């Protein structure tokens, strides 16, 4: 079923005739990702120190912060590839699939942030949720991209899907600055920017910082690996739909001959 058809110009190039969504590159990235994850576990759980105030729970930081950053990255990738789809003459569906795949994992990563964050909140603040500006804006970000995914599922042709969702993807990304600066704008009780601070000096324990760095690398690799597979899978889905069209066409024509 997944063998390619020379007629399907839009999708064959992406799938490249292989039977799985993996390639040499993805396998390399996959291995690197697994190594980085192992490294993260080692540093996060064993080598990095407990925090003075927060104790062991600080280890959640190494998931919490990388996931939201990767979510930001995903949404920016979604916006950029949406823009490329929309504003280039070729209107290549490849970019749309990249946008979609990236959006899907962005949502997953934000969900992780919310989950880990609220667990962390339970440990440090005593409650799962605070009506804090950053938490709320993060929740909004989450819902907005659920809306983005809903728009992708509206149906219609591939280009219709691409156009609609590209518009939403471009507008939705405007929320990210709001989430990031929400702590400044609203004098929040959530941690203000301590890593990506504007004044440049980092006030964090060295090992912790390094562990965080490992976390970011690990999650970035995970993201790339997932997106590569997902875009390929999406290309196959689209191709299957085109193949479905061939079958449906034959059926419809036969219906005419039968009369």
């Amino acid at each position, binding site marked *: 079923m997944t063998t390619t058809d020379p007629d399907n110009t839009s999708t064959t190039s992406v799938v490249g005739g292989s039977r799985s969504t993996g390639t040499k590159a993805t396998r390399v990235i996959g291995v690197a990702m697994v190594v980085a994850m192992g490294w993260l576990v080692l540093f996060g759980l064993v080598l990095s120190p407990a925090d003075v105030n927060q104790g062991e729970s600080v280890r959640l930081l190494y998931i919490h912060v990388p996931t939201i950053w990767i979510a930001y990255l995903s949404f920016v990738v979604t916006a950029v590839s949406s823009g490329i789809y929309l504003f280039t003459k070729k209107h290549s569906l490849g970019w749309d699939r990249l946008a979609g795949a990236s959006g899907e994992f962005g949502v997953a990563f934000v969900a992780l942030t919310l989950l880990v964050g609220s667990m962390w909140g339970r440990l440090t603040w005593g409650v799962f949720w605070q009506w804090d500006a950053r938490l709320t804006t993060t929740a909004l970000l989450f819902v907005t991209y659920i809306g983005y995914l809903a728009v992708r599922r509206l149906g*219609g*042709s591939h280009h219709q899907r691409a156009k609609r969702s590209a518009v939403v993807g471009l507008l939705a990304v405007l929320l990210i600055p709001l989430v990031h600066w929400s702590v400044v704008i609203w004098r929040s009780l959530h941690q203000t920017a301590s890593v990506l601070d504007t004044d440049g000096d980092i006030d964090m324990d060295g090992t912790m910082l390094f562990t965080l760095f490992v976390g970011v690398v690990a999650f970035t690799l995970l993201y790339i690996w997932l997106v590569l597979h997902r875009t390929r899978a999406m290309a196959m889905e689209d191709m299957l739909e085109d193949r479905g069209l061939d079958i*449906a*066409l034959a059926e419809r*024509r036969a*219906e005419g*001959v039968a009369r």
Partner: protein
Amino acid sequence: MPRPVDANDVASDVVIELREVVATLGQFPALSGATMQVDRGDIVLLRGSNGAGKTTLLRLCAGLLPVARGTASVLGHDLVTERDLVRPHVGLLGHQNGLYSDLTVAENVRFWAATVGASSDEVDAAMERMGVAGRLAGVAVAKLSAGQKRRTALAALVARRAQLWLLDEPHAGLDQLGREELDSTLRQAAASGATILVASHELDRAESLATRTIDVIAGQTHDAGESK
């Protein structure tokens, strides 16, 4: 009756040219390979059983549907890339009327005419023609009978003076007088250079109106030749 045409439009007398056009509704290939050519001044009857794809064909020509495969050009412009150039010259009467039910007949016709810059004389003439001038002009569309609504939609279409008229069962719901009036309007428009596609199941009437007939069968078109 159609508006003066600018230079590139008259470059050729071929108004619609479809080659192996496939169009899908959802997953369904409602058009499975339509190839046809329609010349200026033609009145073409689209004939076919329920679900054959007549409505889909008309909506495609109006630029409302994407072309999944094949090539389509209307009025000398590509239907996909130059849609904006095509549309101002096309008028469509679909199964729906496209009227605002809270506005009166006159307000509706005027609104649609205004969006394409038709003069108020033309509006009055069109309403007169389709029999919705006089008392009806001031009645809200919500309070019209089915046939009166159809007449109003036709008046809005006539006022547009399009070059290509796409009519989906235009006779349905009209009474005898309305049918006569519509047919003579269409003949007149065709005589002055408009091109007309009519999908219809009322074959007696439509065959006597049309100059050519195209059969639509399971999403494909088959030329059935000149009818007059």
